[in-house]
C-alpha cells in the first residue's frame, strides 16, 4: 500500500501555509486551482486542512482581553470561563478568571470570602489609580425613523446605524464598550486583541475580535448576524450560561433567553444586512415579516388587518423607504386590498367575488 495520501496531505499543507503567508498573486491562485483540479484526493485533503485552520480562529475568544503577544501556557485554557468545571483542572487560580474564583469558593468558603474581599479591595484601589490616568471616551448617536448613519469610532471601527437606533459608546483603555438601546447597527470592527469590542443589547454581551457583525433589537428579541470573523454572544444577566460562539455566516436570534443559531452562506448573511444600502431582500418571506421590515423604516405604517394574509410568501428586492411601491406590488400579485386609514396602510383580503368580475 502506498503513502499516496500522506504525501498529498503534506503538499496540501504547504499550499495552505504558502497562501497564508500573504502576497498571494493570481498566478499562485491559478496554480493552486490547477493542483486542486488534478485529483479529488488533492481537493479533499486541502478542504479538510483549510476547514480546521479556519476554525482555529475561534481560539481568539480566549485571547480577548488578554495581553497581546503573551502565549498562554499549556492547559491554561482550563481556567477560562469557556470550560466547564469538569474539563478544567482544580488548580487554584490567580486573580485571573472569575470562574476559577467561584469554583474555589465552593471548596473553601472562608478563604474564598477573604480572597474575594481582597480582590474587591484590590479592584477598588486599582480602579481609583486606574481612573487617574485612564480616559473613557463617551459619545452617543441616534437616528430618526427611516434614517441611516455611518459613525466612525475612535478606534478605527465603524458603526452603521439603522432606522430609529440609539447607540452609546464608552471606550476605555481596556475595553471598547457600546450599548445598543434601540434599533439596529452594523459594526466593522478594527482589530485590537488587547481591547475586546463589546456590544450590550437586551441583556446580552456580543463580543468581537476583528469582525463584521450586526446587532438588532426588536420587541424583546435580539438578532446578531456575523458576516466576518467570530463573535461571542453571552447573556449578561446570567453569566453562568455558556456563551455561543458565532462564526461568519451565523444568524443568532435570542428570544426569552433562548438562543437559536442558523448557519447560512456569507451571501445570505450579507443579504440580511442589505438595509445598509437602503434595500431589503425577501426570499419566501412571510408577509407579516416583510411588513415589519418596512415598518421599521417608514412613518406610514402598514397594518395587516386580516391575519390570513400573514403567511403569504413574498420575494424580491425593495427599496426600504418606498413602502408604497411594495404595497402596490402586493395588490398586483396577491389577493390583497390596501387602503389608507388614519395615516396607516391597511391590508385586507380582496373579496373573491369582486376579483371575479
Amino acid at each position, binding site marked *: 500500500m502506498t503513502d499516496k495520501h500522506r504525501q498529498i496531505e503534506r503538499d496540501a499543507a504547504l499550499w495552505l501555509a504558502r497562501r497564508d503567508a500573504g502576497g498571494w498573486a493570481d498566478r499562485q491562485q491559478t496554480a493552486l486551482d490547477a493542483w486542486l483540479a488534478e485529483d479529488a484526493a488533492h481537493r479533499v485533503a486541502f478542504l479538510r486542512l483549510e476547514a480546521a485552520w479556519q476554525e482555529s480562529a475561534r*481560539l481568539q475568544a480566549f485571547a480577548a482581553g488578554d495581553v497581546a503577544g503573551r502565549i498562554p501556557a499549556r492547559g491554561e485554557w482550563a481556567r477560562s470561563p469557556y470550560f466547564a468545571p469538569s474539563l478544567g483542572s482544580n488548580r487554584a487560580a490567580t486573580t485571573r478568571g472569575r470562574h476559577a474564583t467561584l469554583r474555589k469558593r465552593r471548596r473553601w468558603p472562608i478563604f474564598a470570602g477573604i480572597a474575594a474581599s481582597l480582590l474587591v479591595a484590590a479592584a477598588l484601589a486599582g480602579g481609583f489609580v486606574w481612573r487617574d490616568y485612564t480616559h473613557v471616551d463617551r459619545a452617543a448617536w441616534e437616528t430618526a425613523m427611516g434614517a441611516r448613519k455611518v459613525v466612525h469610532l475612535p478606534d478605527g471601527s465603524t458603526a452603521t446605524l439603522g432606522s430609529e437606533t440609539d447607540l452609546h459608546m464608552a471606550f476605555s483603555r481596556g475595553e471598547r464598550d457600546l450599548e445598543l438601546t434601540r434599533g439596529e447597527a452594523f459594526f466593522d470592527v478594527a482589530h485590537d486583541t488587547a481591547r475586546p469590542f463589546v456590544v450590550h443589547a437586551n441583556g446580552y454581551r456580543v463580543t468581537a475580535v476583528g469582525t463584521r457583525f450586526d446587532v438588532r433589537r426588536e420587541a424583546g428579541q435580539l438578532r446578531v448576524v456575523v458576516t466576518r470573523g467570530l463573535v461571542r454572544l453571552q447573556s449578561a444577566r446570567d453569566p453562568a450560561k455558556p*456563551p455561543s460562539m458565532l462564526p461568519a455566516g451565523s444568524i443568532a436570534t435570542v428570544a426569552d433567553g433562548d438562543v437559536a443559531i442558523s448557519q447560512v452562506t456569507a451571501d445570505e448573511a450579507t443579504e440580511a444586512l442589505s438595509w445598509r444600502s437602503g434595500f431589503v431582500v425577501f426570499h419566501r418571506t412571510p408577509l407579516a415579516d416583510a411588513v415589519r421590515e418596512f415598518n421599521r423604516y417608514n412613518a406610514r405604517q402598514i397594518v395587516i388587518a386580516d391575519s390570513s394574509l400573514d403567511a403569504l410568501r413574498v420575494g424580491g428586492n425593495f427599496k426600504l423607504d418606498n413602502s408604497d411601491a411594495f404595497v402596490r406590488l402586493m395588490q398586483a400579485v396577491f389577493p390583497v386590498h390596501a387602503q389608507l386609514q388614519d395615516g396607516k396602510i391597511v391590508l385586507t383580503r380582496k373579496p373573491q367575488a369582486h376579483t371575479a368580475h
Partner: protein
Amino acid sequence: MPYDYDEAAPRFPHVFGRRPACRGLRYLRDMGSPVDDWFVREVLAHEQALMRFLHRNWRDHDEVPDLRQEIYARVYEAATRRVPDSPKSFLFATARNLLVDRVRHQRIVPITAVGDIEQLHVMQDELEPGRWLGGREALARLARALDRLPDRCREVVWLRRVEDLPQKEIARRLGISEKTVEKHIAKGSRMLADYFHGGSDAGAAHNPARGVRAWMRKST
C-alpha cells in the same frame, strides 16, 4: 508507528506559473463551490465516527489515515455527479466498500473472511445523525489540539491564528526564517485538522484486532 507530520521528503510540486490542467469539467469549480461546502459541512463532521469505524475494522492502524483520505476522495467525486441524500450513510457505505475491495485485492483471501466482510457493520453510534460541534465544544477541542502541538509550532500557530500576525512578523519576532514559519504552519494545520476533525484520540492505537479484522492484515 506514530503519524509523521514532518516533511520527511519535501516533494512540493513546482507548479507556480504552470497552466491549469483542465482534466474533466467537474473539477472546474472554484473553492467554496457547493460541493466543497457540502463536503466540509456534511462529511468532515463525521470524521471522528469514521476513524472509530476504520480503527475497529482495519488491522493496520498506520493505514487508517490513508484509507480515510481515499474514502473522502471517493465521496467527493461521487458528490460532484450527484450529492447523496444521506451524507453519513453514503460515507460509511463508501468506507465499507473500500475495505471490502482492499481485502479482496490481497493475495490470499480466506473464504470464511469474505462472508464476514459482507457484514462489516456500522455501529449504532456511527449511524446517529452527526453534527458540527457546538461552539463551546469546538473551542475546547481546538484548545486541546493546540496544546498537543510541539512548542515552537504551537507558538507560531498562536501568533498567526490568535494574534493575527503576518508570517513575516512572526519570523522576525521569533528570530527564525520565513521558510521555517511556513513549515510550522503546514505542520500545525495538519495536526490541528487531525485533532479537530478526528477528535482527541485521532491516530492513537485502538483495541487489538478481533474477528474479521484479523484477516485484513497487511501482506508484508
